[in-house]
């Protein structure tokens, strides 16, 4: 029985490590900013999830108490990761002209929130040349 539990914990650790590695490979390998964003957001879900489950099983069976800190880590990750990805995506849309021009219409008449400036203001810094020239090398600038 103890062997089966250790096997389960080891398997979960390997699965978690595998998906974390895939997430990191995706971050390094994918060609542009928006595609790269897919790597880290998925690594946090299944990769860290499997490692946290392994940790809970280990605390419960080997060390003999119910540890729930892992649930907290999951909650905080699920709160923090989408918001981080959202902010990075918004910053990227704002600073990368080719991406901005490739956006589909909202379909409601209103602009996308990132690109809508308050009354009388511009979303762009007129002093920054890089805001105007779309050089197409998004991955380099991102």
């Amino acid at each position, binding site marked *: 029985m103890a062997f089966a539990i250790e096997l389960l914990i080891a398997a979960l650790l390997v699965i978690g490590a*595998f*998906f974390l590695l*895939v997430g990191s*490979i*995706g971050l390094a*390998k*994918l*060609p542009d900013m*928006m*595609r790269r*964003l*897919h*790597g880290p*957001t*998925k690594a*946090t*879900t*299944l990769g860290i*999830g499997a490692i946290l489950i392994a940790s809970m099983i280990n605390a419960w069976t080997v060390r003999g*108490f119910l*540890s*729930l*800190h892992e*649930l*907290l880590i999951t*909650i905080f990750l*699920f*709160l923090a*990761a*989408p*918001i981080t*990805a*959202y902010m990075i*995506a*918004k910053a990227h*849309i704002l600073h990368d002209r080719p991406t901005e021009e*490739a*956006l*589909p*219409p*909202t*379909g*409601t*008449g*209103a*602009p*996308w*929130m*990132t690109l*809508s400036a308050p009354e009388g203001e511009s979303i762009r810094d007129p002093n920054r040349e890089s805001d105007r020239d779309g050089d197409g090398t998004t991955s380099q600038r991102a």
Partner: protein
Amino acid sequence: MSRILPHPVLTLVITGIWLLLVNAFSLGALLLGLVIGVLVPLFTGPYWPGRPHIRHPLKILAYMGIVVWDIVVSNVQVAYLVLFRRGESLRSRFVTVPLELRTPEAISVLAGTITMTPGTVSADLSACGRSLLVHCLETDDPEGTVAQIKQRYERRLKEIFE
């Protein structure tokens, strides 16, 4: 009731998180958690003008189950795409998801769900709050992806929140 406990759900959440932080159940920890859970909503009440109405709490569990299952399935699909496909050959694109949800809480949960299920990342909201910009890692069928998001997640969130 509403003056002492302006936000009963938040009270329960704070107490629960306090117990999780302590990581051991005891009467003292529960009481301290309850004190914090009562005091924090009292002091932060002005920052929470709206109260989300959760119509079907039990459906949250079903929703979480579906999301966890989707995370597992689509993680495997995306791992395959990352490992065995060249990055340039992925047909990535933005899609617009028109929203039927109106409450901010429901839209936040939907956007978070889209990001956490691999293959899609929510990138922006329209200024009027009625459509969501989603980036897909690999899709040949944008309408199908949008329909799936609406059918699988938005419909259920609408039942829970609205």
